[in-house]
């Protein structure tokens, strides 16, 4: 296939809006294609397929949200067609809708951001049913007893061996850490208050857990860095915890060409104030720090007004949300590994806190100078559903749109944030970075997020002529075009044409197979035999995700040997 004549934005390869052809054959970008197929992209915007590095799209907590919210199911109903299966849901869409809707946006890859090992079979059962896109899942390690014990004993090699085992047991892609220590403390009705607050019964601190996991992550040379949801997330004044966390790991170096730590949905971790009354944005402080520390990356966690379903392994946070909002609520204990919770809520334009939160996400993206350090997410569906990405793109590209929005919000959004004074408007290149090139780089996916030779043949074509459209003024056209890709091409196959899904191939599931020395693996095995015998409610043989759960795997090798 040859994609002819589009304005190509491929920032990873230094291509900035050049009119050029892209050739794809055998699912990959090649020098020259001879299959005779042609896509006319003349006068249109061409980018690599979008990559979402953080969304909650599969697994037990997503399903808990669906069960808890039949009213959400009714909000996104699209009947089946000859080609497509029925779709339901807005914040917690069914599996089919997840695949179709990403594809319509021009996205070809999305990663589930948090799966406990114990729930991974469920996660993969859902990932298998998400059509079209490639996907993967990050595995939760931040409150696992074996991790806490290795950190307590200072045995990093054994910790690395456990991570290797945990990734294999969950068919997971990377190390996700959520409120380290807090989830374990929650099992006893508590939480940790900061990075130096010891975890009950283990005596280790979040600082030690984060440092230990980061070092083990680097010992294993994993493609992705540790992916951190900070302590005290969602609380006023938490930017101090966030900065203290980053300062606590400045001495750790990455063993691969990528960030050493990814802090996720930073919007929820950039708050000032001593309580909700003097709640304010500390995004400028966070962005300043990132501007002088290139080894860290983050994603926005942008808030979208309207309905959201918060879901996280941060169980004490969800308990607090439920009490505060008097909302429906579920909390869950995941045996030796994690806790979790789900709470639906509505973000209101006239709610002062929500309006400030909305501004914070945008401040973070616009004040961080290097777009490779801050990628676009809504922490779907915590900040809002991913189908709103076109709205976020329009906001990043147009100060006029931001001003229009600010005028409709509670006035504190303007008074307690720096957003009104920010002039910066992202250009097409910035957008290509924050929605595809950087997420792929941050996840460590060398074949995604760019259109160089050998890259996956994943392309998004939008009906926008970047040479005559002024995104600052015509932001509504930008939003419209990004909401319905003219074409989405996945592995060389046209899957979306004129905003409609026209083919439904099965995507692949990434997971990381990290090797460790046998003696370390044996030490971990011995511990696990004991833990399963003593504590787990199930046998180890019923616990591991078998190959039958991942029918189209893409195994990435890493490790010590």
């Amino acid at each position, binding site marked *: 296939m040859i994609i002819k004549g589009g304005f190509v934005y491929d920032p990873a390869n230094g291509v900035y809006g050049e009119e050029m052809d892209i050739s794809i054959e055998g699912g990959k970008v090649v020098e020259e294609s001879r299959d005779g197929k042609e896509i006319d992209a003349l006068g249109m915007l061409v980018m690599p397929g979008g990559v979402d590095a953080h969304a909650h799209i599969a697994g037990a907590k997503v399903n808990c949200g669906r069960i808890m*919210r*039949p009213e959400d199911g009714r909000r996104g109903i699209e009947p089946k067609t000859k080609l497509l299966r029925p779709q339901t849901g807005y914040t917690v869409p069914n599996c089919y809708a997840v695949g179709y809707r990403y594809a319509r946006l021009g996205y070809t890859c999305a990663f589930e951001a948090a799966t406990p090992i114990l729930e991974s079979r469920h996660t993969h059962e859902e990932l298998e049913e998400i059509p079209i896109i490639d996907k993967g899942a990050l595995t939760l390690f931040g409150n696992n007893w074996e991790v806490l014990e290795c950190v307590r004993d200072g045995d990093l090699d054994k910790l690395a061996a456990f991570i290797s085992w945990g990734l294999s047991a969950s068919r997971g892609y990377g190390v996700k850490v959520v409120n380290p220590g807090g989830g374990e403390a929650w099992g006893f009705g508590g939480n940790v208050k900061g990075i130096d607050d010891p975890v009950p019964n283990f005596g280790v601190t979040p600082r030690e857990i984060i440092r230990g996991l980061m070092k083990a992550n680097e010992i294993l040379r994993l493609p992705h860095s540790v992916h951190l949801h900070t302590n005290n997330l969602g609380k006023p004044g938490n930017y101090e915890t966030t900065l203290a966390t980053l300062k606590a790991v400045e001495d750790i170096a990455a063993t691969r060409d990528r960030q050493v730590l990814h802090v996720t949905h930073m919007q929820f971790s950039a708050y000032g104030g001593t309580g909700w009354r003097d709640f304010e944005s500390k995004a400028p402080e966070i962005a300043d720090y990132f501007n002088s520390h290139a080894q860290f990356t983050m994603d926005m966690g942008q808030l979208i007004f309207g309905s959201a379903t918060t879901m996280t392994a941060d169980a004490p946070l969800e308990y607090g949300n439920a009490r505060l909002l008097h909302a429906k609520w579920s909390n869950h204990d995941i045996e030796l590994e994690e806790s979790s919770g789900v709470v639906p809520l509505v973000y209101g334009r006239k709610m002062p806190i929500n309006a400030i939160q909305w501004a914070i996400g945008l401040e973070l993206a616009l004040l961080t100078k290097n777009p490779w350090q801050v990628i676009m997410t809504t922490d779907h569906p915590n900040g809002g559903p991913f189908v709103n990405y076109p709205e976020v793109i329009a906001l990043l590209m147009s100060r006029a749109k931001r001003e229009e929005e600010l005028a409709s919000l509670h006035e504190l959004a303007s008074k307690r944030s720096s957003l009104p004074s920010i002039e910066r408007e992202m250009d097409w290149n910035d957008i290509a970075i924050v929605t595809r090139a950087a997420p792929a780089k941050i996840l460590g996916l060398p074949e995604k997020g760019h259109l160089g030779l050998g890259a996956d043949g994943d392309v998004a074509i939008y009906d926008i002529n970047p040479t005559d459209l002024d995104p600052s003024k015509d932001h509504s056209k930008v939003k419209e075009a990004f909401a319905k890709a003219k074409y989405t091409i996945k592995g060389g196959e046209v899957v979306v044409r004129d905003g409609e899904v026209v083919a439904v191939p099965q995507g692949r599931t990434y997971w990381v197979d990290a090797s460790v020395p046998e003696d370390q693996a044996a030490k971990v095995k011995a511990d696990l035999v004991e833990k399963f015998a003593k504590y787990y409610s199930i046998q180890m043989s019923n616990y591991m995700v078998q190959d039958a759960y991942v029918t189209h795997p893409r195994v990435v090798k890493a490790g010590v040997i």
Partner: protein
Amino acid sequence: MREIRVVPRRDFRVPVEAEKISPDIFAPLTIEEIRKVEVWEGNRKQALIDLFEISGDGDPAKPEEVLIKLDGNFSRVKRVGEKMTCGRIGALGDIGMHAGNGMAGGEIAIKGSAGDWLGREMRGGKITVRGDAGDYVGAGYRGEACGMRGGEILIEGSAGDYLGEHLCGGTITVLGNAGDFPGIANRGGVIVIGGDAHLPGAEMASGTITVRGRARVLPSYQYQETVEIDGLSLKKFLGDLVDNGKGELRVASVEERGA
């Protein structure tokens, strides 16, 4: 008034999803066009004319000037008048579930009885029922935080269980009895029951419920005083206290435990 008469051609064995029977949808169409409007009968798409005889004034009119007369057995015809904003629907007999779903204005008058979920999530307008109504009158559908937010429902007969569940506004009047848990999770609506009811106002946060007959009152309600309303002496309670509620429950005759 532009009058349109709709008569079932047969007794339906599976439900017909008739949300298209609404003044807003019929108004701009000619009779010929209305006959072609598609609805689902079970899992089959049908034109209205396949299921109903449709007659009346042929030319389009403003929706507020449309009167739809339903003549015959509509007890398996669901969602009539869904989201209607104005105009009138008059049913000479019974009507099926979900009549007046989310309606915002206009009037539905039912001479027979109504099925479950009558006027669910209604926002405005008026529904009157000469006979009885089923369960969940004016309620929110599964999972919804708010049922009816505005408007008025009058049932001259009796209502089923969960009358006005999750009411966030509006008024429901039942001249007969209500079943179990009327006004459950009330958040600001007004319910008046002429006859008896069982355990009204569970989880009520605000609003008022008046039972002019007998009712068993939940133990989480606190007696306050006796009040006189429309010549009837009623015991006034505050609750539901398990939910920190500030709702007002008035009951003429309190059914004692074990009675």
